[in-house]
């Protein structure tokens, strides 16, 4: 992992639009519109 590629505090977070597990597409811009969004990356099954 190159930490320089990971957005730091004060930097812009990359935009994304991804389907959730029920098929609904979620856009970061919509998620933050109400104030902020907590985005958690997790490993998933392994």
């Amino acid at each position, binding site marked *: 992992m*190159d930490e320089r590629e*990971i957005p730091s505090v004060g930097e812009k977070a990359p935009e994304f639009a991804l389907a959730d597990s029920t098929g609904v597409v979620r856009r970061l811009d919509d998620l933050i519109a109400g104030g902020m969004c*907590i*985005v958690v990356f997790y*490993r998933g099954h392994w």
Partner: protein
Amino acid sequence: MADYSRHLDDFRAAGAELVAISVDDAARTEPVRQELGIKFPLLCDTSREVVKKYGLLNSREKGGIALPASFVIDRERVVRFRALEDVASRVSVDQLLELARELGRGVEPKTKPRNSGVFPGLMFLRATMNALRHGVHSPNK
């Protein structure tokens, strides 16, 4: 889990949405979400595009999975808070809620944990994330 939902409401009251992202597909993720009673969206980055954009692709494992990380992103899309790997799970809900409320009021957070090794908040996610990692086995049923 009841606890958890209560906290989710608290975050929403503070103006914070919550999502979690992995490279697992919907067929794999949705049964887990239902089993754990998770009420926020679990996003499926099967192409790894978003994980890569965030610099979090761990290509040494299973064709590439996400490294654990948490971000608080404000309405200008600016990162206000970040925790990586182990640090991301050493957190308490009260602290994150406080952070969310301060950000919601437009106040700079008093706590600046970037170098402290202790991320305020997100402890409540730990149980869920651990469960996502370990608790539910692949559906070979």
